[in-house]
């Protein structure tokens, strides 16, 4: 092991080297910094990096803790004390978080070093990271394509070996979809499993924080650190946290996996479908029983999602008024002018679009027709999953119907972009957990583009989907494949 090879390591292997004092946290940080300096000009995964603060943390890191000395990249929607937290929005340009989010406090308690804030769609609104108000992030497998979104910065950083692991957030698929498109592992925990305290709110009944990692084991290691009850967050579940690594290594005998016929839609890319079919066969050969199930209200999920998420967003983003923090319009002639121009100047197009839609569906005369009806259909979607999980341990599907698309390909058609969440948003509506793991490649224009397999588990059943994902992962070589840019070594 030379310093040059360090960035390719996963968290578990890196932590083992740290624990055995074969490398120091400071050396790891230096190597990672060199790696970022050599490749991030091509990827643009990071918005800000505070090397000095991280170096101080590294000097006092306790490498005997589970994540001791491991740098973790943080989506720029999560508060890290003293660091920028811009949500990739002009309206938060210059803002610095006054405190640590609970997930950051917990990562630190497990020995990890938050290192670098990653790019995202502005306020997490998007599926390609193209809605960032700062810059575009590129897919490490093909620089002309999107990394997925909204946690595209964290996903791309991990895929390009410029992060050992990262935190993302999800509202409708923003961890799992970029994980699939960038060829990494992404876990969305059940609603309430991980505290949202200190995470800038998009849609509060849907938002969750979760890990983006190179392996399933790393995902379990981060979950061990960040899951659990937080008295500062009222939707946080007061339920015991298992050791998520405990079930890893078990085979799939006795596991029942559901295939929902409603997920076999037209519009799934042929190479994606072939990869999923092969993965199902693999699960079967590993001992799982494959069962047909039905989720009859699936077709309504995107409509429900975009009504509820925009409604909640319009309320949450009302706080950006140019008084307590963030951008403020110059020389307003009165208070309405102050609000109207502050928000016009600060928000980007997609955020404006969603504020308008959300305000509309909540407005007098339309509330019952859109918002209330959507909440009721949401309950039907939740019941679909509850019934399915009476028959099976997990559901299996593609994460995204297509591999990474070209930069600019979908930006003019919001509805088309919204449909990217078709397999992921139902889990957010139902509050259940889901994971995306690499399951193959599509050959497109001479490039290999990663494909993601999604496993959905019942609420609080993260340990189960991690176990199944791990068994699948370990039976394949997909997680060992490295993006072309990851194969280029740093100039160390």
């Amino acid at each position, binding site marked *: 092991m030379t310093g040059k090879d360090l960035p390719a390591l996963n968290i578990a292997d890196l932590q083992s080297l740290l624990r055995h004092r074969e490398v120091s946290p400071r050396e790891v940080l230096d190597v990672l910094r060199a790696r970022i300096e050599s490749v991030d000009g091509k990827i643009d995964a990071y918005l800000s990096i505070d090397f000095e603060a991280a170096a101080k943390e590294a000097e006092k890191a306790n490498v005997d803790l589970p994540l001791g000395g491991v740098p973790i990249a943080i989506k720029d929607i999560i508060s890290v004390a003293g660091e920028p937290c811009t949500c990739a929005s002009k309206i938060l340009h210059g803002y610095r978080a006054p405190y640590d989010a609970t997930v950051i406090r917990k990562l630190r308690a497990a020995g990890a070093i938050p290192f670098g804030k990653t790019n995202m769609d502005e306020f997490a609104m998007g599926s390609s990271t193209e809605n960032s108000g700062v810059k575009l992030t590129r897919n490490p497998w093909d620089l002309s394509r999107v990394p997925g979104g909204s946690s595209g910065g964290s996903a791309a950083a991990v895929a390009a070996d410029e992060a050992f692991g990262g935190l993302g957030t999800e509202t409708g698929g923003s961890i799992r979809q970029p994980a699939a498109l960038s060829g990494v592992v992404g876990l969305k925990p059940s609603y309430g499993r991980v505290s949202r305290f200190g995470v800038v709110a998009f849609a509060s009944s849907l938002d969750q924080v979760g890990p983006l990692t190179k392996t399933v084991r790393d995902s379990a290691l981060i979950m061990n650190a960040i899951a659990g009850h937080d008295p500062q967050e009222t939707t946080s579940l007061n339920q015991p946290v298992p050791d998520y690594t405990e079930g890893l290594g078990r085979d799939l005998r006795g596991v029942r996996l559901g295939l929902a016929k409603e997920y076999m839609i037209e519009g799934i890319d042929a190479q994606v479908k072939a990869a999923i079919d092969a993965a199902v066969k693999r699960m079967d050969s590993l001992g799982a029983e494959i069962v047909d199930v039905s989720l009859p209200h699936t077709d309504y999920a995107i409509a429900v999602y975009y009504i509820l998420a925009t409604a909640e967003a319009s309320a949450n983003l009302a706080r950006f008024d140019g008084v307590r923090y963030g951008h403020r319009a110059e020389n307003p002639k009165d208070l309405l002018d102050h609000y109207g121009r502050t*928000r016009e100047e600060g928000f980007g197009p997609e955020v404006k679009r969603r504020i308008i839609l959300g305000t509309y569906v909540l407005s007098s005369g339309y509330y019952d027709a859109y918002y209330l009806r959507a909440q009721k259909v949401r309950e039907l979607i939740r019941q679909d999953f509850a019934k399915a999980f009476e028959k099976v341990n997990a559901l299996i599907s593609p994460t995204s119907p297509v591999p990474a698309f070209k930069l600019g390909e979908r930006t003019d058609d919001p509805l088309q972009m919204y449909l990217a969440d078709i397999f992921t948003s139902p889990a957010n509506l139902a509050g259940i957990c889901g994971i995306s793991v690499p399951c193959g490649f599509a050959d497109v224009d001479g490039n290999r583009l990663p494909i993601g397999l999604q496993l959905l588990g019942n609420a609080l059943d993260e340990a189960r989907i991690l176990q199944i994902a791990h068994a699948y992962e370990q039976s394949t070589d997909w997680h060992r494949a490295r993006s072309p840019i990851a194969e280029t070594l740093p100039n160390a």
Partner: protein
Amino acid sequence: MLKSSDLDVAYVAKLARLNLTDAETELFQKQLGDVLKYADKLRAVDVSHMEAAAHAIPIFNVFREDESRDWFTAEQALSNAPRQANGLFIVTKVVE
């Protein structure tokens, strides 16, 4: 459910305290019209027997002890304010 053509982007933008250019208003009118047309499919669902779900996993009555805790100072709370004076946020004048 009402027809999506009921959406008046210029009016809703006023409700949202969000100025839009004429070009944005026109573009959003079309794009969000498409999205609302797509959402019309929810009309087909029978929800007459359904309760609305505000949260997927409901929790009720979350209490904590009513006692003071260490938290950030007024100075920290003001640290990101675009305009402040005497330990206070400065707001645009609301009365003549």
